[in-house]
């Protein structure tokens, strides 16, 4: 049951083969049974979920259900949920209950989906391994010694282990795609501005984008359909028609021009991962697609560029966590400065503090031009590389991450190596483009993700290409043996 696609679950619910309450209870039982090992959820809300499921069943019985009515979902704990704690993986917000829902959450409710709970994540979405969470690391369902990736590691692991059929994630530098790759699921980061950021706790506002994490491209299409669309409460949300993402899934990809960036296969790429990606590209070629070598000459600058832009924005975005109005406050502050210093010092973890300090430095008088301004200029160059590339090709493909999931603790002492785990995903955020990761094989039992990058608002094309790949291969149907029961 937990291996069914969303379309199959929807068919079953509409055909009354099972009820939403039964389905929801099944997932709640699995969470109770398995999540102690995986730690993918920070908060589980069984009563609320069962009540929502019962309401969905009423709709389904009366024939008024929509495509996702009664389907359970898990939200990354970065999305504010009215009445349910939203921790953002931080001690700072361990006691925070928002009086509003994020727009993404509202849209899922409007589709009558059932919220199972909130998934674990790197603190404030800062991390690539889910080890910076205040609630402890998430384990990779394929190998409990391995990290699930991050920052949406809880969502990725929950979907991979069958603890949720689908989940929301956010992606600032790879936080949907990299954990999707490391956990062997399908994840999509939409074009910047397609999905509302309202109620999504900001890490780096100009890069953050929410997207679906699921078992297949079709499942991603179904959830994206619900998530996407203009929101007047987000000034960076774009007012444009959302296409029917499922309608074009079956389009033939013969003649599709696939750009293969030379830079994505240079040093640092694990040989096993490279082989898996080359094989995937061959499969596309066999299907009639054309591989074109392209260059993204500035992409090698994306990690340093990102580690100026993102910390700069986060240093400002996280200023509101000051112990004054909500969130963590230190005991017995002596005065205002002490309140600030200790509330923030005790409330934030090391990685968050590191990034706040980097960002504060980069924005300081005398350094702004050398760092922030320069980074913005590089960002422009990186974007132009893609504009140029998309004049020649329809999609770009390469590895999502240079290696498969690494072991817990392996990189925690070496932030730069950790940062390099997002080397192929970051440029996509800097350019604001849509990107996907789809399962493409394994190296030593750990999943490998194939990254697909599309031009602006080409989500339908990406989903089509990914779906076609999933028609040819069965990698997305593989489930971690330990949780297959």
């Amino acid at each position: 049951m937990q291996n069914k696609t969303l379309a199959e679950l929807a068919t079953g619910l509409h055909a009354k083969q099972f009820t939403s309450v039964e389905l929801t209870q099944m997932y709640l039982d699995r969470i109770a049974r398995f999540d102690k090992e995986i730690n993918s959820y920070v908060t589980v809300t069984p009563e609320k979920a069962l009540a929502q499921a019962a309401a969905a069943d009423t709709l389904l019985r009366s024939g008024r259900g929509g495509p996702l009515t009664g389907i359970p979902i898990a939200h990354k704990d970065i999305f504010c949920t009215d009445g349910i704690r939203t921790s953002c993986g931080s001690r700072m917000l361990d006691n925070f209950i928002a009086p509003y829902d994020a727009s993404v959450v509202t849209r899922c409710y409007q589709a009558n989906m059932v919220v199972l709970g909130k998934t674990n994540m790197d603190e404030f979405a800062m991390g690539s391994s889910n080890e910076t969470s205040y609630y402890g690391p998430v384990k990779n369902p394929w190998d409990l010694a391995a990290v699930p990736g991050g920052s949406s590691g809880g969502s990725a692991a929950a979907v991979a282990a069958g603890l949720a059929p689908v989940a929301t994630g956010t992606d600032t530098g790879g936080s949907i795609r990299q954990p999707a790759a490391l956990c062997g699921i399908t994840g999509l980061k939409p074009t910047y501005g397609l999905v509302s950021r309202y109620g999504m706790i900001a890490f780096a506002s100009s890069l953050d984008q929410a997207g679906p994490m699921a078992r297949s491209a079709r499942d991603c299409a179904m959830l994206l359909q619900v998530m996407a669309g203009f929101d007047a409460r987000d000034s960076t949300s774009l007012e444009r028609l959302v296409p029917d993402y499922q309608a074009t899934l079956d389009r033939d990809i013969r003649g599709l021009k696939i750009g293969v960036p030379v830079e994505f296969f240079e040093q640092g790429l694990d040989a096993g991962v490279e082989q898996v990606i080359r094989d995937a590209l061959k499969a596309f070629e066999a299907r009639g697609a054309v591989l074109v070598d392209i260059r993204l000459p500035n992409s090698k600058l994306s990690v340093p560029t990102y580690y100026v832009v993102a910390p700069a924005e986060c240093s400002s975005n996280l200023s509101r966590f000051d112990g004054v109005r909500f969130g963590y406050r230190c005991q017995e502050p002596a005065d205002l400065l002490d309140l600030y210093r200790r509330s923030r010092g005790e409330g934030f973890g090391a990685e968050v503090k590191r990034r706040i300090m980097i960002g504060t430095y980069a924005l300081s008088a005398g350094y702004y031009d050398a760092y922030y301004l320069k980074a913005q200029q590089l960002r422009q160059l990186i974007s132009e590389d893609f504009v140029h590339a998309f004049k020649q090709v329809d999609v770009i493909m390469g590895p999502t991450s240079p290696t498969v999931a690494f072991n817990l603790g392996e990189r925690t002492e070496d932030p730069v190596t950790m940062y390099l785990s997002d080397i192929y995903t970051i440029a996509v955020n800097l350019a604001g483009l849509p990107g996907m990761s789809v399962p493409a094989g394994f190296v030593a039992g750990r999943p490998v993700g194939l990254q697909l990058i599309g031009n602006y608002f080409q989500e339908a094309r990406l989903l089509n290409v990914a779906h076609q790949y999933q028609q040819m291969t069965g990698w997305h149907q593989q489930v971690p043996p330990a949780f297959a029961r």
Partner: protein
Amino acid sequence: MEWETVIGLEIHAQLQTRSKIFSGAATAYGAAPNTQACAVDLGLPGVLPVLNKEAVRMAAKFGLAIGATVAHRSIFARKNYFYPDLPKGYQISQYELPIVAGGKVQIELEDGTHKTIGVTRAHLEEDAGKSLHEDFHGMTGIDLNRAGTPLLEIVSEPDMRSAQEAVAYMKKIHSLVRYLEICDGNMQEGSFRCDANVSVRPKGQREFGTRAELKNINSFRFVEKAINIEVERQIDILESGGKVVQETRLYDADNNQTRAMRSKEEAMDYRYFPDPDLLPVALDDAFLNTVRASLPELPDAKRRRFIETFAVSEYDAGILTSSRELADYFERTLDAGGSAKLAANWIITELSGALNRAGLELGASPVTPQQLGGMIKRIDDNTISGKIAKQVFEAMWGGAGDADEIIENQGLRQVTDSGAIEVLIDEIIAANPQQVEQYRAGKEKVFGFFVGQVMKASKGKANPQQLNDLLRKKLQ
């Protein structure tokens, strides 16, 4: 040594939009603490700002009114600093590309000459909340009702050379924003406040001296006093061989002194950068043309028109156009058809005096412009004298009705029948033979005695000119 003062002002005008600049919460003043602050104003996690279009329109209106460039593209930036009444830990303001740049206004100096003061820029920003230090037993209360209220910060060039000029400039901007109906100008409630950058230099020197920034001076009177006392302080330092330190100073009105708040070394690094939550503000010509077409007649133009059309003196025209309400009151008074000169006099002296005594704003005047105009018409057509008019005015003030009703009911119509006046004169002359003798012997002063007596006998209603003429004839 002779010193020259150099002053530049930063004026914060609160824009009178109904909702806040980045949220839908109300901006009304005086609500219970924290009842007009929504999730956006509180800086809760995940919420986002959405720009209030009305605030943009108001800023553009101001820019066009001072002949400035209203930017086709302006950018909101974050000004980062920690303070408990600043919920997000940053203020959304404009830094590198403000919405308004390079305007000017004319001020009139005491000697009647005019001077042009440059406006460097005006930018949109959100206000912070308020920290309340009293009533909390050593703790501080935070009221975030004001957080997110739209402000237009108007920055002048260092063009002013005296406290009087600074006050004239501030009054000019005050009048302008009220004319434009973009700010209520209420200084007590903090809707219009000002910081002053003050320095002195030896007369004739080109370079500016080191400046001090005087914070939050909340009345015209305090601006003048604060600047004067600060100039004195700086000159004292310089003349005793010291150096002025660049710093922010607070004016203490109770002790009439300025004191240091923070020095340049302690100055905060605000780490401005473009706010990624807000897109650049793009204004096209069509929008600016609509705003331009909505501009009211501005004070300078109105003043010229009053002088040219109504032949009121330059001085009176200046007073009458000092606020849009007063100018409107004046023009509506004229609608009744009376003389402009009389109307101007009555408004500037009697009406303003009565309002001042009663502590009322013009809008709350018990005498409407229609009523005042009706009365002035009766002075014009000799129905009543100027003296009786004061009586009529008082009755109108007291709610006794229109001038015509009062004149009728109280029998105040002026006596212009020379026969009737002659009868009174004859009686008085007959009753005072001694005074008649004195007058005829050349004691001119006694004439006044007769005028008084006859006027008293007429109960004040005799036409004064007629009375004079007839009396002179009879006494000859």
